[in-house]
């Protein structure tokens, strides 16, 4: 009763009718609409992109995503570099998880060249990929809470992320860009005492995630802002090419690690995390459980990883490495979805063409433009962050 009393009876007859394409006809001269640019100079935007919003009152009527602010022309640059010269630049394609670029590049190249990677190297690659997922999830969680005005979560999770970055530094020598997975293997074995420190960090993360759950996920205001907001219809999954946690939150258990197992994932025990309601809250919760699963996976990997062994396969002289002609596609499951490299070789020392398939490509443009219509302007930031889009992998 009281709920019904307090609920405003929304009169939508004042809103313009939608045309056959599902959009409204915007007539700026009617002085009803306002056009607003959300980004690129905007703290609420993920990375460097912009949304051109058309508002009627507080509601978004139309949206167009503008990308290209981060375009460096990687695919062109790689065409005029030798394979080994491509290796240091591929990780720069996407900042939050550079290792997926390295892995996809290396595995595509190994497949074309027919190189078998030693077992120890495969374990190390699995470890680095999972660590990369972990730190990316942590950074995202801060962003999601921050987009709804809860800055404290960001402080905690970035602190936890720094711990993982320390381990990265210890293992690979780099904080953000690691350049660890060479074509044919990896660059180094686990340092002494790495397991011990990693275990301590994982315990710390476990402890903090309990607090994060209490403060963020059990929070009444957070629930009020996110439950029922920004629902992805499961029927959109294939037409929009949605992958990763965004698809899993809609109840579709799509996980490249299970579907097309790579590296050592078949030997690890895990089940894809699946949500039900597909709103912002569910997506956040799926990512949180995915994060905890990643912590668990790292523990499993640490138990199985060999301390020594061959870490690099025999490769030709990298400066004169002619990769046999052919084409292939290699993929991996990153935090945002399916990450893939499509590589075409024409049998020379230079790649013919490399195409990067970033998951944000579909999430940030086609899907976001559709989802954002009829959202409140205050929810735009939260909605965009909940898709976990990252512009550099759209435009490369």
């Amino acid at each position, binding site marked *: 009763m009281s709920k019904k009393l307090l609920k405003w009876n929304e009169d939508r007859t004042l809103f313009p009718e939608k045309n056959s394409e599902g959009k409204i006809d915007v007539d700026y001269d009617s002085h009803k609409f306002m056009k607003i640019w959300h980004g690129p100079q905007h703290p609420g935007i993920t990375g*460097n992109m912009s949304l051109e919003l058309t508002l009627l009152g507080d509601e978004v009527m139309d949206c167009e995503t503008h990308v290209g602010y981060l375009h460096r022309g990687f695919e062109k640059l790689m065409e005029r570099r030798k394979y080994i010269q491509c290796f240091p630049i591929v990780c720069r394609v996407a900042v939050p998880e550079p290792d997926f670029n390295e892995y996809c590049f290396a595995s595509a190249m190994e497949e074309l060249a027919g190189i078998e990677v030693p077992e120890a190297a495969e374990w190390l690659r699995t470890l680095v990929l999972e660590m990369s997922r972990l730190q990316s999830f942590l950074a995202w969680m801060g962003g999601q809470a921050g987009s709804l005005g809860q800055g404290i979560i960001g402080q905690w999770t970035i602190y936890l992320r720094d711990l993982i970055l320390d381990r990265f530094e210890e293992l690979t020598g780099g904080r953000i860009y690691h350049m660890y997975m060479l074509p044919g293997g990896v660059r180094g074995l686990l340092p002494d005492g790495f397991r011990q420190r990693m275990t301590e960090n994982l315990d710390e993360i476990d402890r903090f995630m309990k607090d994060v759950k209490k403060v963020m996920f059990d929070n009444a205001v957070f629930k009020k802002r996110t439950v029922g907001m920004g629902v992805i219809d499961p029927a959109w999954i294939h037409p929009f090419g949605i992958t990763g946690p965004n698809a899993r939150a809609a109840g579709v258990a799509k996980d490249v690690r299970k579907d097309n197992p790579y590296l050592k994932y078949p030997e690890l025990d895990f089940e894809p995390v699946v949500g039900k309601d597909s709103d912002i809250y569910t997506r956040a919760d799926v990512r949180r459980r995915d994060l905890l699963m990643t912590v668990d996976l790292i523990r499993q990997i640490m138990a199985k990883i060999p301390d020594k062994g061959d870490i690099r396969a025999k490769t030709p002289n990298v400066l004169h490495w002619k990769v046999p002609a052919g084409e292939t596609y290699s993929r991996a499951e990153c935090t945002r979805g399916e990450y893939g490299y499509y590589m075409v070789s024409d049998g020379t020392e230079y790649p013919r063409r490399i195409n990067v398939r970033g998951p944000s490509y579909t999430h940030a443009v086609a899907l976001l433009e559709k989802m954002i219509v009829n959202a409140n302007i205050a929810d735009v930031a939260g909605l965009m962050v909940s898709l976990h889009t990252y512009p550099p992998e759209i435009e490369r």
Partner: protein
Amino acid sequence: MGKEYIEKRTVISPEGNPIEVDPLKDYFCDAAPKSCKSASGIIEKFANWARSESLWVLGFGTGCGAIEMRPLMTPRFDAYRFGIQWRPTPRQASVFVISGYLSVKTLKRVVRSYEQMQNPKFVVALGSCTINGGMYWDSYNTINRLDHYMPVDVYIAGCMPRPEALLAGFDKLKHIIREGRGEGANKYAENFDWYKGNQKKIIKDWDMPDYNW
């Protein structure tokens, strides 16, 4: 995409009267910036001290360096201790951190944001890519030298620079400001035509006024 929104046109006002609008002239002030005199002696020194101890950084992540800005402002490195704070609008910010490579499309927005900042303003450029192009020296879409387009106070080398390097860079910037050498805004005003010429050479669809406040 059409550029009709910057062309002269007639708009019907809510009262029904037609109004002639020339957006570039009417919506912006395009007078060239003027070099500002600094106050003299001890007052300027005091002002410079205050400026150096209160660096308000514009929240514009232009490139991948932006990912290291978050650790910088969070527990491990905590730049707030040194008077470095975020500011979401260019009007209120005094430091522009160019975090990494600039594509031409971003440069256009960066120039606009830079011009909206108030004198004195400082530019810190991160990463090798702002110095000489770095990894992307032969890319067709990223600039090679930032100091051709706007005055730069401090360059921080590295790909990408670690937060410690950023802190050291900010420390250097503080020294520069305290010594009264942080006059980038005046330099921009004095060499305005040169900077504008360089910008216009690479920004092909120039659809904004020459200077926008």
